[in-house]
């Protein structure tokens, strides 16, 4: 737990960086993220923090070293740091997963209207950005809901829209299809109703 700068010789370019602070930044990002965090995003977290001050880049090797230390810091906890296909994520160790699933066995059962609407927009209009969902639903997207959808692995990020801010594009996954008993997206119930027609006309008018 104590700051412990034992190997300054290893990363001479970043000896101005307080290691304990660096680990806290990684923690903030990894814990706040709704999805696994790619190394690129982790390095972005340091950009404002250090580069402008010290005029040097944080290397990926440096970040990986910190991640290892973070992992070591978690050794005595119920959590672990893992690397997935899309990035790093902190999760509850398998050993303690049982306690969690036993406490909330009803977890997947109740789907709130807000969650269903968010999911249906992603399903029917994919790929969509968060802003697309907000636009269509008329309310701010609740991070908690996206987190839940990510956690169930019903949705995933699939690239980004090449506009300012590079917002992530959201799509549904095969787990989503499984959960809703669908073989493919083509099996989604059709929306050939009056409200679809009205909606299309509205879109046209607004353009």
């Amino acid at each position, binding site marked *: 737990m104590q700051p412990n700068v034992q190997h300054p010789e290893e990363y001479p370019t970043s000896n101005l960086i307080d290691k304990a602070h660096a680990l806290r930044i990684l923690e903030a990002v990894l814990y*706040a993220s709704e999805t696994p965090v790619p190394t690129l995003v982790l390095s972005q977290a340091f950009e404002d923090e250090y580069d402008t001050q010290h005029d040097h880049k944080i290397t990926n090797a440096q970040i990986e070293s910190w991640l290892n230390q973070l992992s070591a810091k978690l050794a005595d906890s119920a959590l672990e740091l893992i690397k997935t296909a899309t990035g790093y994520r902190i999760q509850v160790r398998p*050993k303690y997963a049982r306690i969690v699933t036993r406490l909330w066995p009803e977890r997947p*059962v109740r789907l709130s209207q807000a969650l269903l*609407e968010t999911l249906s927009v992603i*399903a029917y209009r994919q790929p969509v950005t968060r802003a697309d969902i907000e636009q269509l639903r*008329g309310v701010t997207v609740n991070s*908690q809901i996206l987190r839940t959808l990510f956690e169930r692995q019903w949705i995933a990020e699939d690239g980004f829209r090449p506009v300012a801010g590079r917002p992530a594009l959201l799509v549904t996954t095969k787990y989503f299809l499984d959960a809703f008993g669908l073989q493919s997206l083509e099996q989604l119930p059709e929306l050939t109703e009056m409200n679809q027609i009205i909606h299309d*006309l509205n879109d046209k008018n607004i353009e």
Partner: protein
Amino acid sequence: MTESEVEQHTVNLARVNDEWFSELPDDLYIPPEAFAIMLERFEGPLDFLLYLVKKNGLDLVKLDIAPIASQYLAYIKLMHQLDIELAGDYLVMAALLADLKSRLLLPAPKSLTVEDDPRQSLLARLEEYARIKQGAALLNDQLVEGRDVFAVTVGVSNILPDNAEPEITRFNADILQLAMRAILSRPPVVEHRIIAEEVPLEERIIAVRQALQSGKSIRFDHLLVRAQGRMGIVVTFMAILELLRQQEIEIVDDGLKENQNKEDQSPSLLTVRGLNLAA
């Protein structure tokens, strides 16, 4: 606009409207276009009034409402002259203040008690609004989850320790369709200023009559012209009602089938057919 021009402008205005502009506050030297921007900063007439109160450094409790009312009315009048669009709330307040001012100019009746003082209710409102505004500032100072702090939710390892068959809850995909329909059937949230193109009923009647001339059935949505938007839907429906009344067409499907027969899930829409007029 240079400062001297503004000054000139203001002086001229003062000569024209002595009632309003003899009491012009100093900061009317703001360029006129800045008024609109300034207004946007306020949350409404009470906010604006409160600003005037504060700017004058007045003790709200002992406040003589008259100068504030005059200032407010002066602003409103000026903005009106500058063609700056004002929300109705501001005009309602202006009417209230004008009424208040005129009543205050009348000699006070002997029986006027503090409770009857027309200033009191406005002051009470201002005070209450100031509290609400303070409450808003205090709430804004709180550490808000999702803005200042972020609740941590970590996933749970997917590897089940005992390799037990995970209990998969299956959902009916229809709930997605219902959710999407709920979204689509809501009125659009953003208020768009759409200059409604008139859709003449006569044109629609002719169009529907022509489309059904051959005696064939056509679904309602196929009678619509996309460019006519919502108004087109309404007027087309009116055209159908008119043609029904004149017995030129008949209904093949009233579009209510889905409700009558739950087995049949196929979408059902109003469908009409032209009648042979020659007969």
